[in-house]
């Protein structure tokens, strides 16, 4: 549908643009036609005006000739000529001269005295002389200023063109009784060309005067050759049919023109006006350009706007498609997810649920739509639970938590519910969306796991308790053995018995020691270890232990001493017994694993931490064994038990004690060079 709409819009916009362009083109075409029509009209008007002017000029000549005709006076023509052809005739700018000639062409009198006595060649005139009717006979263009130097030229060749003066002779017969005379007027062509070019500048067109036989007499176009026929193009042909007319044509020179011609109403001459079509069209082009300057930008802007509208439409549709896809995707997710999803109005009325919701709750969508999710309430949660939930949703727009709900069939189910407020772009509440994950099964697994764990822990506790009990129970008889052995040793015994009994005592002590350690470990494991909180004198503790282990070390040739350090602050609190146990363990290990060199003890309190460092130059511990030694029943080397004795529980217990105090026990060692154990525990001052 959108494709159709879009293409319809496109077609409409395109049609609109094409329509505009068409109207614009039509306007331009109309303007062009109008320009040409106006040109034709102007040519016709010019032709009429120039024809009138030409006819009046001829009439003036005729008037002068008629005035000399017989009957006006008894004086001879020559006398009357002298009287009448005075300076007044000289003032007519279109006349070079006016002369009286006899039938032979001899000039009898003239307004220009220089002409008198000359001979005029009476040939080349139109209409041909010989006709008796009193009419004007027009010659061709003669070179020369006046009759005195006039030369009849029937056709002016191009190469003989010069700018010399020329004139057009016009004959009019006058009868004087038995004598016939002619009046010869020498027409000044420059007067006409000036008149024409003033009214019609050369670039706009030109005006020609032709004889009725088509011969060109003069033209305001300097390139025209007077004396030729055909300079007016098709005008000569039209002339045969009608006395005046207008036409579009191409002149022999190749110029397209709008021509209008008009034959003089009384004389055998005509005026042809040729307006340059190029000039007229150039004006039309100028106008078209000006219009285009206005129209085209508007048209372009409109087209661009139309295109933008179309583009925007397309983009909107694309976005709509994308949104629709997203919606479909969301719908498919909504439908496919295993989590129950419900959508409510801000008031809490359910407006949509997904299939998983139906599956989890047992309600169909139609049963819950328009109802509040409260219908799922199981009654297992008190009122404050729901109140908190609602407050959270309203204040932060979110709530999540576990909830026990009731299915339609009455059974309960565990769910993790996640409720979120959905806001629009302006922050207004539109919906709430709730997602319920059914965790009933998971809950069951969890409770089973918890049960198993509790069982396992109970078993472990039983084991530890057993160990502790066994150790305790073993220690009691062991103390009895030791006590009796001591008693026996104080009794009179021979040397051999004393030695054997000494072995018994040592073994018992050793066994008791092992039992004590196992008991300790058991206590720690079963979390029965109770730490004391007593004043702690670390200085004397270190001093005592150093003194205690120094003889044993010295016996092995090892020097044990306390490194000089700043006195530790007074008032420390802790469990002195357990601290002593750790340090004893560290020192006994040091003495045990050091064959030569020295053992040092260092202590300081900094950063709220009591740090005691025991360093030795003993056998050291390989890097990969450094963690193992802290595990129960482990020594760095299995063979060590045999060589060095001990249960391997010492370090394990020490670390657990340190950790129980909130501290740590770490080792830093290089095999063959020695070990460095660092005990860090929080320094407590109260």
């Amino acid at each position, binding site marked *: 549908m959108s494709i159709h709409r879009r293409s319809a819009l496109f077609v409409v916009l395109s049609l609109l643009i094409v329509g505009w362009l068409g109207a614009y083109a039509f306007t331009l075409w109309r303007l062009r036609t109008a320009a040409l029509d106006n040109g034709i009209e102007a040519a016709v008007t010019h032709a009429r005006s120039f024809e009138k002017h030409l006819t009046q000029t001829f009439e003036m000549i005729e008037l002068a000739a008629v005035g000399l005709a017989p009957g006006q006076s008894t004086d001879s023509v020559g006398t009357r000529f002298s009287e009448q052809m005075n*300076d007044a005739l*000289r*003032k*007519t*700018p*279109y*006349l*070079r*001269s006016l002369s009286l000639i006899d039938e032979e062409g001899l000039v009898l009198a003239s307004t*220009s005295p220089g002409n008198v006595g000359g001979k005029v060649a009476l040939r080349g005139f139109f209409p041909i002389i010989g006709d008796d009717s009193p009419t004007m006979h027009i010659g061709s263009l003669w070179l020369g*200023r*006046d009759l005195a130097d006039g030369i009849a030229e029937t056709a002016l060749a191009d190469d003989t063109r010069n*700018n*010399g*003066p020329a*004139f057009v002779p016009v004959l009019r017969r006058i009868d004087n009784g038995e004598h016939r005379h002619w009046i010869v007027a020498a027409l*000044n*062509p*420059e*007067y006409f*060309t*000036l008149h024409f*070019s*003033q009214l019609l500048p050369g670039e706009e067109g030109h005006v020609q005067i032709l004889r009725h036989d088509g011969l060109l007499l003069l033209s305001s176009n*300097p390139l025209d050759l007077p004396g030729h026929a055909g300079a007016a193009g098709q005008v000569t042909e039209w002339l045969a049919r009608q006395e005046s007319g207008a036409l579009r044509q191409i002149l022999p020179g190749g110029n397209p023109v709008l021509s209008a011609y008009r034959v003089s109403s009384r004389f055998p001459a005509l005026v042809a006006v040729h307006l340059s079509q190029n000039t007229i069209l150039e004006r039309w082009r100028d106008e078209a350009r000006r219009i285009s300057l206005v129209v085209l930008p508007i048209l372009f802007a409109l087209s661009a706007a139309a295109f933008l509208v179309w583009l925007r439409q397309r983009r909107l549709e694309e976005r709509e498609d994308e949104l629709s896809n997203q919606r479909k995707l969301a719908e498919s997710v909504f439908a496919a997810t295993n989590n129950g999803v419900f959508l409510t109005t801000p008031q809490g009325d359910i407006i949509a649920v997904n299939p998983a919701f139906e599956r989890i709750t047992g309600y169909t969508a139609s049963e819950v739509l328009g109802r509040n999710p409260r219908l799922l309430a199981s009654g297992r949660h008190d009122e404050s639970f729901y109140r908190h939930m609602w407050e959270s949703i309203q204040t932060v727009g979110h709530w999540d938590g576990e909830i026990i709900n009731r299915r339609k069939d009455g059974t309960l189910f565990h769910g993790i519910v996640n409720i979120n407020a959905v806001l629009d772009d302006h922050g207004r509440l539109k919906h709430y969306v709730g997602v319920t994950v059914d965790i009933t099964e998971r809950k069951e697994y969890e409770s089973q796991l918890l049960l198993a764990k509790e069982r396992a822990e109970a078993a472990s506790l039983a084991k530890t308790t057993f160990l502790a009990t066994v150790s305790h129970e073993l220690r009691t008889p062991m103390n009895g053995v030791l006590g009796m052995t001591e008693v026996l040793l104080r009794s009179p015994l021979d040397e051999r018995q004393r030695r054997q009994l000494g072995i018994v005592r040592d073994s018992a002590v050793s066994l008791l020691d092992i039992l004590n350690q196992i008991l300790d470990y058991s206590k720690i494991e079963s979390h029965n270890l109770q730490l004391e909180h007593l004043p702690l004198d670390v200085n004397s503790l270190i001093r005592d232990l150093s003194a205690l282990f120094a003889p044993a070390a010295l016996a092995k040739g090892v020097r044990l001493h306390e490194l000089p350090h700043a006195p530790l602050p007074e008032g420390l609190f802790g469990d002195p017994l357990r601290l002593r146990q750790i340090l004893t363990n560290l020192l006994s290990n040091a003495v045990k694993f050091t064959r030569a060199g020295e053992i040092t003890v260092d202590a300081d309190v900094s950063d709220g931490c009591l740090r005691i460092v025991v360093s030795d130059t003993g056998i050291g511990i390989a890097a990969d064994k450094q963690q193992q030694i802290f595990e129960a029943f482990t020594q760095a080397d299995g063979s060590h038990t045999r060589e060095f004795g001990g249960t391997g529980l010492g370090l394990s217990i020490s670390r657990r004690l340190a950790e129980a105090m909130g501290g740590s026990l770490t080792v830093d060692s290089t095999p063959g060079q020695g070990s460095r154990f660092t005990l860090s525990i929080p320094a407590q001052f109260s």
Partner: protein
Amino acid sequence: MHRRSCFSALLLISLLLPLQAMAQGRLERIVERGTLRVCIWPDYYGISFRNPKTGRPSGIDIDNANDLARRLGVRTQFVNSSFATLIDDLESDRCDIAMFAIGITPARQERLRFTQPYLLSDIYAITTRSNPRINAWEDIDRPGIVVAVARGTLHEGVMKEKLRHAELRVLETPHAREYEVQSGRADVFMTDYPYSRRMLDNSDWARLVAPPGKFHTTPYAWAMAPGDDAFHSYVERELQAMKMDGRLMTNAVRHRLEPIVFR
């Protein structure tokens, strides 16, 4: 009888008064008469032109004459004259002074007394717009070219002397020059700066051909009949004053003649 003798005596006195006036200087006579008679050439456009349609005179020398008369406390009376009749008009006392930019030529100086020059004009040629033979000043003095001048103008003498190849045609009136050129009987006519302005302003057919450099400049002045030193020196003083106080230039600007004002 007695009354008749009285009348005769009055008649005699009235006849004698002009004679007495003749004996006075021209200045006194002008004042007495109340009019300053100024000879003008009414066709001199820009100088002393009488508009043929209204008959009203206008031009720089009309203004100058009115200025001069105002100084004398009299009115002006313009008397039509021309270059051809100028000398006769002054000698026969038809006017007191000729004020129409009269070129100072030796021939005129023999008969007239000039003031200091106040205009200086070169010679210009006028042809038709459609004349293809004359395009520049050099085209004038060519074989086959006909040059028209008016009789009695300074151009007649100058062109007679200067033309080598062209034919010179001397015409009886200044107007005849124009018809001669317009009808094609002549190619150009020679004139001065003010008259050439007239042609350009009033004729749609005329085309000015100016000399490329200085051709022949002529100083223009006012002319009087010789013999009255007082009148002459008065007019000289007034002309000097008009030059100094800018009245001359103002009048020249009014008639667009400032390019040829001579200081």
